């Protein structure tokens, strides 16, 4: 295990190294790795004699909680951003529009700044785990050692690729662009590997597969391929994109608030839009991935599923509903503000649909947040005939919650479609029929989701879970995959009736972007606590019991205070990293540069991404 810590720690030194010396570092690491393999075995044997160590005053678990959360959030950002940075670069390359290339480069700049800090927290976390939980770490090292080697190699490859990708950006333009794109592809492949290898360690703790026979690789492979590994991989992959998108959106939102010139306002307004778009794009399928994960947990171990959904963690899901609801409202509100301020005049035609959408969202949020049983005094409970409210209790069950979650996704998707179509007039002859078909499909889909939800009350749970809920998800997905290409084709031939105006959004738009990022960070912290607490008093569920003084899960209030603290520390950390990353930009500015005239998009400019984009600024 110790060799892993050394490598993690050394990795944090990489950002200070010039790319030319990367090969030297790689050789050095390999040389360090070999003797460390032997060292690890000795350390594991010694660690068996001490089960736990504590940090007086702070508590070992609290310290690990903060450090692990910072590492995880930073890692989520670092692994999510390359995905859409690369996609942006491809869009720029295909459309020959330099602004997308510039945006992709700006995303990557944030990525390189955060990379070193992520590795630093990874190293600190590893040392803390080895020191504070030696027995657990010795056990995990014994099972997963082959995957530690793979992890180190992946980190080497990721680091080399990231440096080539970032430092080679300007040098690899023109005919070398395809090679640069290939590097971006490799970066994402290695990033995926870096995410799924540690996921195996974490998911093994929740759903262990222990094989006593076979070689070290056989045992490691069996433990890696545990029942919740891929559901968590998929869920985290999507969540990382959401986190990256909303954090980039928040960065743009703050830069928009601080912008000194109209040009900056236009750029960061657009960047905020793209960040929000990416976040929403990822957020729409995320509940489906979460549903799959919960299904797998139930199938693996029903007790664990019940602990999560019906036991002491049940109230956590009410908080989760609240956070997701605020996030949906924030994302939609930002779209609606975009319609009002970026496409002047269109707010008149969209006022009623926006009001209807707001009402639907609020009602859905109300249902989602309704608890199955209420906090009631004995007397109140007697009057109600139990802790279940005679009317509201109907909304507290999964059938109702699945229905409103699907409806909220539908509404958010329609907000996006509405934003896409605002300020444009379809010219295709078949546009009317297409719009009628889409309208009918939307109504039918909404009704079908509600009917299945109500029907779900009258069938056994197994039917609802296996068929009705899946059908609801498929209906919403069908609407999304049908509407998106259809709208894209319609918009291709549409004429612009109102030009998009960037940099005119009110101050609250910046705050909405910040709020969305805070909600996502809180959500990730909350669900991390849920995942960890579902193991109850086990380090490795059913295999290694937690016998420390911290073998309990704290109540939600205490945990929420920690989540808030973690979120605040993470926000400050990210703000500091981004501030350092953009210091160089300020130095490059000409002091007496005059503020340019407000931007006017030339007529006939075709938006390359839904909602358009600002004028060429290079």
């Amino acid at each position, binding site marked *: 295990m110790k060799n892993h810590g050394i490598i993690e720690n050394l990795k944090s030194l990489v950002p200070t190294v010039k790319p030319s010396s990367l090969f030297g570092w790689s050789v050095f690491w390999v040389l360090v790795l070999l003797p460390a393999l032997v060292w690890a075995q000795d350390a594991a044997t010694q660690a068996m004699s001490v089960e736990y160590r504590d940090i007086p005053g702070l508590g070992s678990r609290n310290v690990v909680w903060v450090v692990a959360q910072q590492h995880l959030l930073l890692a989520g950002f670092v692994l999510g951003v390359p995905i859409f940075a690369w996609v942006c670069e491809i869009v720029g390359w295909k459309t020959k529009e330099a602004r997308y290339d510039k945006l992709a480069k700006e995303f990557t700049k944030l990525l390189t700044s955060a990379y070193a800090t992520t590795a630093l927290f990874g190293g600190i976390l590893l040392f803390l785990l080895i020191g504070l939980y030696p027995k657990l770490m010795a056990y995990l090292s014994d099972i997963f050692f082959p995957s530690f080697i793979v992890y180190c190699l992946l980190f080497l490859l990721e680091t080399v690729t990231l440096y080539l990708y970032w430092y080679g950006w300007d040098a690899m333009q023109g005919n070398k662009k395809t090679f640069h794109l290939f590097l971006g592809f490799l970066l994402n492949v290695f990033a995926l590997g870096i995410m799924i290898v540690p996921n195996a360690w974490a998911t093994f703790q929740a759903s262990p597969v222990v094989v006593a026979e076979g070689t070290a690789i056989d045992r490691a492979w069996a433990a890696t391929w545990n029942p919740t590994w891929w559901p968590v991989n998929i869920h985290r992959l999507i969540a990382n994109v959401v986190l990256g998108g909303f954090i980039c959106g928040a960065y743009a939102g703050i830069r928009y608030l601080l912008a000194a010139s109209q040009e900056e306002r236009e750029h960061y307004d657009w960047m905020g839009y793209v960040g929000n778009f990416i976040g929403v794009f990822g957020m729409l399928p995320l509940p489906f991935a979460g549903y799959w994960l919960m299904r797998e947990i139930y199938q693996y171990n029903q007790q664990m599923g019940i602990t999560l959904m019906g*036991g002491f963690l049940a*109230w956590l899901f009410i908080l989760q509903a609240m956070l997701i609801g605020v996030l949906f409202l924030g994302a939609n509100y930002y779209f609606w503000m975009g319609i009002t301020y970026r496409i002047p005049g269109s707010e008149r035609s969209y006022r009623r649909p926006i009001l209807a959408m707001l009402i639907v969202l609020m009602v859905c949020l109300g249902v989602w947040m309704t608890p199955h049983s209420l*906090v009631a005094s004995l007397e109140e409970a007697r009057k109600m005939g139990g802790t279940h409210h005679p009317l509201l209790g109907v909304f507290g069950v999964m059938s109702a919650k699945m229905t409103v979650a699907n409806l909220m996704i539908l509404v958010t998707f329609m907000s996006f479609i509405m934003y896409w179509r605002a300020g444009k007039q379809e010219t295709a002859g078949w546009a009317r029929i297409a719009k009628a078909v889409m309208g009918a499909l939307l109504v039918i889909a909404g009704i079908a989701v509600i009917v299945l939800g109500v029907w779900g009350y009258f069938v056994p749970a197994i039917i609802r879970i296996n068929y009705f809920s899946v059908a609801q998800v498929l209906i919403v997905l069908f609407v999304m995959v049908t509407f998106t290409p259809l709208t894209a084709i319609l918009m291709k031939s549409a004429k612009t009736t109102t030009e998009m105006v960037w940099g005119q959004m009110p101050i609250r738009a910046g705050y909405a972007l910040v709020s969305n990022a805070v909600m996502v960070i809180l959500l990730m912290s909350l669900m991390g606590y849920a995942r960890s*607490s579902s193991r109850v008093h086990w380090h490795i569920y059913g*295999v290694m019991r937690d016998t420390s003084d911290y073998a309990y899960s*704290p109540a*939600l209030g205490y945990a929420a205070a920690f989540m808030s603290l973690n979120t605040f520390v993470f926000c400050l950390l990210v703000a500091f990293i981004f501030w350092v990353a953009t210091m160089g930009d300020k130095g490059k500015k000409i002091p007496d540069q005059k503020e340019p005239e407000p931007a006017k998009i030339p007529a006939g400019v075709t938006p390359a991404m839904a909602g358009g984009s600002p004028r060429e600024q290079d």
Partner: protein
Amino acid sequence: MSEVALLQLIGLTVVGFGICILLFIKAKFLRVVGFVVIVLGTFTLIALGVPQMPSLPPAIETFDIAEVKTPDDLASIGQKIFFSKGQCALCHSIGPSESARCPDLKGIGAKLAPEFIYESLTDPQAYIYLDFRHEGLPKEYPARMPYIHKNPIALSQQEIYSVISFLQKMSGEPISIKVEDVMNIGKESEVEVASLTVNGAP
């Protein structure tokens, strides 16, 4: 002052601090910090408003087999295990329940032989018995019965026999498990009495 009250006080202070920043500070970045602080403080206060239930590990009680004198003593221990360490009541009901996740166990001790119950606990997939509801069509359940003698539940032999005794007694049957047989398995075992109540859960 309780921990919850202290955290509420801290939460309110944080929210108040954020409001002061928004009211009196003009610097835009600090105002964003104030906004974030208000959001986080409010979230904490809301989380402190829901039922506060820590998940405590099961307390370990010594189960001295020497104290078991009669089959009723055995059944009494079995009852404790049924509702605690055994986690049986997490899924099974005693009496009809539409919301039960697994078969109703009322009268099961009279209906099934102890050997069959033992097999159902230790090799639950060996024979799937569908006629749970005592009326109408057999009902299939999504849950798979766990191996009760393996982790994470891991009941000992004595504990399994105690549970069978309880099921027989609860069904009005004479307890067929002999105390001497159980005593011969081992001298001492441990019974973990966990608090599995979910009062206040939504």
